[in-house]
């Protein structure tokens, strides 16, 4: 029998791509999804893709979601691969969340506080009942409006900080690290840790944050403040020498307040875990804040026993683009190595057989 090696990998790939494009489009009798529909009506998906894709661009994220057929990790991957080719014009000055145009602002540690509790457009108190009116496409009733508050409400950690009960912000003028340019090195500073969490996989952050609440590295958290809204981004062009506003981004910020017993040099006070994410996501910001605080265990003299406290473990596994690539690479051909294993096992079995036979004789 004559054997002819399989050829045609190239054509197979082209055909696969053609089929994929057809499947993505779906039933041609149904109207094609527009990118601005995704950007406008699937906002939370867009937010997540922007966060994990590390690029704030709603339209591009929406396009990526369309291209990925709604596979959000695949969409984030598309954004990342695009982002890495972009030239860098400037670094923004730190955004100031105290000057946020607030859509939502709640604190779990005070009943009421200056500026008040503002629920915003939250799912929190919806009853999770499938809404068949949406199926019918009924327009929503108009939402009541109130004039925006002129004054910026104070941040909760500033209220506690005034009394010395909250660890102080450390002013650090050094340029923060950038994981996308420099490889991760251990021990990793908090700047790099926060960057890794901000672009980390939401499911992974959620599970790790949850694990700290169930005894795997507990940190006694309280949701000090969650605020969500628009902040302006400013850069300082070298030729101008002063900051100019280049636009607004919508973010969610979470400040966790955690117990700290104090040390020889520091009196007992509250410490913080910090979460900041693109768009609207309490879940993502809160999980990030829990994990951030957990990774500070060593710095604060606590025992490092749980996965969420192990900086190397968390940072090495938070990135879903890395994770999905490596998990899925197992489907690439490995037959050369498998052949080697096969021959190895066969040889070892032969030798064991010989030994047993010798022993029997």
């Amino acid at each position: 029998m004559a054997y002819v090696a399989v050829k045609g990998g190239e054509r197979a790939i082209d055909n696969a791509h053609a089929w994929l494009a057809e499947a993505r489009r779906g039933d041609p009798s149904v109207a094609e999804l527009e990118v601005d529909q995704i950007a406008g009506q699937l906002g939370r998906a867009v937010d997540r893709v922007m966060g994990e894709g590390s690029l704030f661009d709603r339209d591009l994220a929406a396009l990526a979601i369309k291209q990925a057929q709604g596979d959000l990790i695949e969409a984030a991957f598309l954004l990342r691969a695009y982002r890495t080719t972009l030239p860098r014009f400037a670094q923004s000055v730190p955004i100031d969340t105290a000057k946020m145009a607030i859509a939502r602002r709640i604190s779990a540690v005070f009943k009421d506080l200056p500026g008040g509790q503002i629920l915003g457009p939250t799912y929190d108190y919806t009853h999770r009942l499938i809404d068949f009116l949406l199926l019918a496409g009924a327009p929503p009733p108009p939402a009541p409006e109130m004039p925006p508050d002129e004054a910026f409400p104070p941040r909760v950690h500033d209220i506690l900080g005034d009394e010395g009960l909250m660890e102080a912000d450390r002013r650090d003028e050094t340029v923060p690290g950038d994981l996308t340019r420099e490889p991760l090195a251990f021990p990793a500073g908090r700047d790099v840790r926060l960057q890794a969490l901000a672009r980390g996989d939401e499911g992974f952050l959620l599970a790790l944050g949850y694990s700290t609440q169930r005894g795997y590295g507990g940190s006694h958290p309280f949701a000090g403040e969650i605020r969500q809204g628009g902040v302006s981004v400013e850069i300082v062009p070298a030729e101008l020498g002063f900051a100019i506003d280049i636009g607004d981004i919508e973010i969610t910020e979470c400040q966790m307040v955690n117990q700290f017993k104090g040390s020889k040099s520091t009196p007992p006070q509250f410490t913080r875990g910090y979460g900041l994410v693109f768009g609207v996501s309490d879940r993502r910001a809160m999980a990030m804040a829990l994990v951030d605080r957990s990774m500070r265990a060593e710095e604060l003299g606590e025992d490092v026993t749980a996965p969420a406290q192990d900086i190397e473990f968390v940072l090495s596994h938070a990135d879903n683009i890395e994770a999905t690539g490596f998990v899925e690479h197992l489907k690439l051909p490995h037959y050369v190595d498998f052949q080697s294993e096969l021959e190895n096992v066969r040889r070892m079995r032969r030798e064991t057989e010989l030994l047993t036979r010798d022993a029997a004789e």
Partner: protein
Amino acid sequence: MTSEIGGYNFAYLDEQTKRMIRRALLKAVAIPGHQVPFGSREMPLPYGWGTGGIQVTAAVLGADDVLKVIDQGADDTTNAVSIRRFFARTAGVATTTRTAEATVIQTRHRIPEQPLREDQILVYQVPMPEPMAKLEPSRAETRRMHGLSDYGLMHVKLYEDIARFGQISISYDYPVMVNGRYLMSPSPIPAFDNPKMHQMAALQLFGAGREKRIYAIPPYTDVRSLDFEDHPFRAIRAPHPCGLCGAEDSYLDEVVTDNAGGRLFVCSDTDHCAERRACGHVGDDGVAEAAE
């Protein structure tokens, strides 16, 4: 279908990034076997699918280069096709399937059978650059072990293999000592290929994109597979001649030919097999070239 990708630099990466990778490569060549961290970029191919090799290739590729890409020793496996196509599109370089014609060869899991020359570069795709990763998960710790050449852990693993199985049970990604100093992962090539790394005339470069490490073996460097004097390293190969070209010294793939347990053993290096057949070698299951 194969439209040109517009708006990207030669070989996809921008020149700044290539320069950064070249600096890492120079350092890697200067310290054979040592893993150099580098600012691995997000590539338009998934991590684990050759992003490290692609970045290294992009950084060393020139307009006159001739590129060969293999996966499992074959030029026509889908991932090899995809990567070759990527460079044909973004760099417009000539590509080849012939080992002798290539100036740069990117590979996953194999070293070509034909000995490489001084004017060739072999680029390996590396999933897990740390040879002790399965024994010690912390990179901070393995980095310290490399610094102190503290390789007792690896030797203990080999000792344990012999104590338990009567032989070393590693059949691929078999660890090597480079230049008598650094313990190194040869990438998941079969142990059969390990001896080819020793004193190779070509420059060997290794890229691990997800793990963000580059390492290298300069030409004519000692590369020894770890072993014991009384349990020397043995290359593993299926004990058959190639069914197509009759080669008795090449690495073989085992192909299942029917539902009755039929097997055919053929060269994993498709170019090597084709070259031999072109020279008139015929295996038991092959057909003479002239007859086609």
